[in-house]
């Protein structure tokens, strides 16, 4: 027999934990987190480096430290968790099908659901690197799990494709483990992760960062024996005559994250083709009533602090929905990415109440001026696609502006960053 649940949270990463705590704070009685892994924390247990919590706790913490703060909180607040339990189905009526070795095959029909499934990495196949198919090609996150959790090394001489945060952090981690990282190869003219990681993980360790380069071929029959690296032109196509062979026994791929929305799709949740996550409103409600979402499942965040904040909104709203059986629809105004803006989350706002906007630019630039529909203007010394911009928009200002229908966000820049 299925237990009564007010709010069910799928995923126990920082998003799921924060959402569950917020739902309890908002008064939801039974809050259950369902997590497929053997422990709480999502990605954080394997992120043993520092750099977490700078915004939320104003402290420099490691992943496990940050996670512990939330875990203790959740336990104190009486959040229930069910580990090693995988949600395999979710439908538009919020019926959850889950399965586990311990608890068997289960169904839940909670008052509200929070999606907090995080994201997955783009694989070799998705990046489409030609060549042979030897062992020793893996994503940076998989390598991180092997090294930091399982205690195994996939190789001793590495090339990293992609300069996302995970790639750069792993380049440093592997160097500290005694491995040689020959290069981090990035197809764009700018690095894909935070500047702080570029400095602390690459420059400080003398690891070359090859911008506007790509891996054009993988060599080796059984194990990777090397990769061909070459320059790319303005269309990001390999340039003939610039190829160079780098011997190595491992290629790490760190070429971007994709929000994990297979369950959302099954429930009929509308997805945003740009973010890869659900279209959400100010309350982080998706297009399916009673299904909310927060964290990397909505958009790939670079800082965990924003993940927690976003998920708190989702958790609170879910508790309200579970209590009332419905939520006020807040789909008044559509937020539209304008000049040099790739996306803005949430995609829908009510026009009342304060709201935090998350966005990314398309191209880097200096002396950036961000204009949110004339309601809010802000200057930045520089903007980069890899660094998410977070802006607080006051409900009062929005109301006064009388904006209806659409709110266009533009970002003007001078010169390239």
């Amino acid at each position: 027999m299925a237990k009564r649940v007010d709010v069910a949270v799928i995923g126990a990463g920082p998003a799921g934990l924060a959402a569950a705590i917020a739902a309890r704070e908002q008064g939801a009685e039974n809050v259950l987190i369902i997590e497929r892994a053997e422990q709480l924390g999502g990605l954080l247990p394997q992120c043993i480096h520092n750099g977490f919590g700078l915004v939320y706790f104003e402290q420099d913490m490691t992943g496990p430290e940050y996670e512990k703060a939330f875990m203790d909180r959740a336990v104190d607040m009486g959040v229930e968790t069910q580990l090693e339990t995988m949600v395999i189905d979710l439908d538009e009526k919020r019926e959850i099908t889950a399965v586990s070795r311990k608890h068997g095959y289960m169904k839940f029909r909670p008052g509200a659901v929070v999606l907090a499934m995080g994201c997955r990495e783009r694989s070799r196949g998705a990046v489409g690197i030609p060549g042979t198919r030897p062992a020793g090609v893996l994503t940076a996150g998989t390598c991180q799990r092997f090294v930091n959790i399982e205690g195994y090394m996939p190789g001793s001489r590495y090339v990293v494709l992609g300069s996302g945060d995970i790639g750069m952090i792993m380049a440093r981690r592997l160097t500290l483990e005694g491995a040689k990282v020959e290069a981090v190869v990035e197809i764009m003219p700018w690095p894909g992760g935070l500047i702080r990681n570029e400095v602390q993980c690459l420059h400080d360790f003398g690891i070359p960062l090859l911008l506007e380069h790509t891996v054009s071929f993988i060599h080796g029959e059984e194990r990777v024996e090397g990769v061909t690296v070459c320059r790319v032109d303005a269309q990001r196509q390999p340039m003939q005559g610039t190829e160079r062979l780098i011997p190595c026994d491992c290629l790490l791929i760190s070429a971007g994250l994709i929000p994990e929305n297979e369950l959302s799709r099954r429930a009929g949740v509308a997805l945003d083709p740009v973010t890869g996550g659900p279209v959400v409103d100010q309350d982080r409600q998706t297009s399916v009533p009673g299904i909310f979402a927060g964290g990397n499942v909505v958009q790939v965040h670079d800082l965990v602090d924003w993940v927690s904040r976003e998920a708190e909104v989702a958790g609170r709203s879910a508790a309200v929905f579970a209590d009332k059986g419905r939520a006020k629809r807040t789909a008044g105004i559509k937020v539209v990415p304008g000049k040099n803006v790739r996306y803005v989350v949430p995609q829908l706002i009510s026009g009342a109440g304060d709201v935090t906007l998350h966005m990314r630019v398309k191209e880097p630039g200096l002396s950036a001026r961000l204009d949110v529909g004339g309601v809010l203007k802000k200057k930045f010394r520089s903007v980069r696609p890899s660094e998410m911009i977070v802006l607080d928009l006051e409900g009062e200002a929005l109301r006064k502006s009388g904006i209806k229908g659409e709110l266009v966000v533009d970002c003007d820049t001078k010169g390239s960053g």
Partner: protein
Amino acid sequence: MPDLETEVLIIGAGILGAATARELSRYKTDVTVVEKRADVGWGITKANVGVVCQGRDTLEFRPEYHRTRLLWRALPLMEPLCEELEVPFIRVGGWLLIRDQVKKEKLDKLARRTESLGLGSDKYYAYSELRELEPFISPEIKGGLHDPEIAVVHPVYLTQAMMENATANGARLMLETEVTGIEAEHGGFTVRTDQGEIKARYLINAAGEWVDRIAAMLGADDFVLFPIKGQVGVLDRNCSELASSLLAVIPEEPGDMNIVVPTVEGNLLFGIQLQINRRHDRSTTEHMTRLALKNARKLIPDISDKDVINSFCGYLMFRNFEIGWHECEVAMSERVPRFINMTIGYPGVSASPGAALEVVEILQKDGLQMEPDPKFNPHRKDIPDFSKLSDKERAALVKKDPRYGHVVCRCETVTEGEIVEAVKRGATTLDGVKFRVRPGTGRCQGGFCGPRVTRIIARELGIPETEVTKAGRDSTQVPLRTKQLLEKGGRDG
């Protein structure tokens, strides 16, 4: 001294070797299969689109061809075979399409021939009718002939099932055993392998890409094989609605194979991009991927590069031009008695049950005593596929064996129970598990489950994780423990 003696030795555990082993296991004959790789079906058979063609889809299937005879012989056998072995066989139906009206003549000719050969009557649909059935087809397609019989199988599953059934019925399988030399002497052969010597009375050469090399070891290479590399792309499961049947454009020039095929798993494959190549080169190329995509979009414009989750390639081995581009061979060598070559270019999967029967007949005709084994059991039970079961079946299975409640691969919903069973059935590597129960074939390509599957394999085989390989030999996944490099560095300097 030979390490082993056997009556019939099959070289190669591809689909042809496996089909032959299974057919021979009906008899009390002593059969051994040697395979150089760590698992069965990893040669050309792995790099394949799995269409059970019906022998009426091109004009090149001429009744006078050996390969056509093999194919037609095999066709009625395929579905019952898949039933006995519990491997999926899905009649998806197929379209032979044209891009310009001039080609309509060729379709009419094919349709007339199909009728006259008594193979059924295929109906022509113009684009407007076709669109009702396959709404994503490009409006540039003028129309097409529909063949309702076209089916798909998973060639590796079928090979594994046949091999499993053959060994259950007494055949011997030796993996990671490579044939390196052969001597013919009176009454038999001495076959040298990297695992020792094998004496055999009959030798069946089903070495796929390397059939000519094996034949050359005996001086029986009175033929030439042309390797044509074919590259195939795989689309995400989310695209499955784009095509529900085999879509093929009638070749505009020879060797032009523009197709989109649904797999038994519900992915779509596209290709086949062909290229003459050195055969040991198993690499995919960007150029071929791009060409294949471009072609696929001419068929279904909605296919996007973002949906490509993988690509692979294999070799179609064609015989000499003189005897017909598409000809094949399943025959006793004219130079060396008791040595049988098996090589089929395109319809190797479809024709495999027919080819196996032919080998049995050749052996019988040659005087090999083959007494039917009354204990032969044609059935084999498949590994339960958790993802495809109903709610009730799932609940019952998890109750019976809680390991089926532990989902290890999230993309494909593969449970620990299935992985353990795959190891029991002979998988010893990550690819071996992947090609039996699919962890790592989904969108994340093993990113999430890789470490977990590695751990289960190590545990089930009782070996350290550092010895678990991707595909045998030196392809270890995590060759070192952490700190090992540091310790080494510390000692060296």
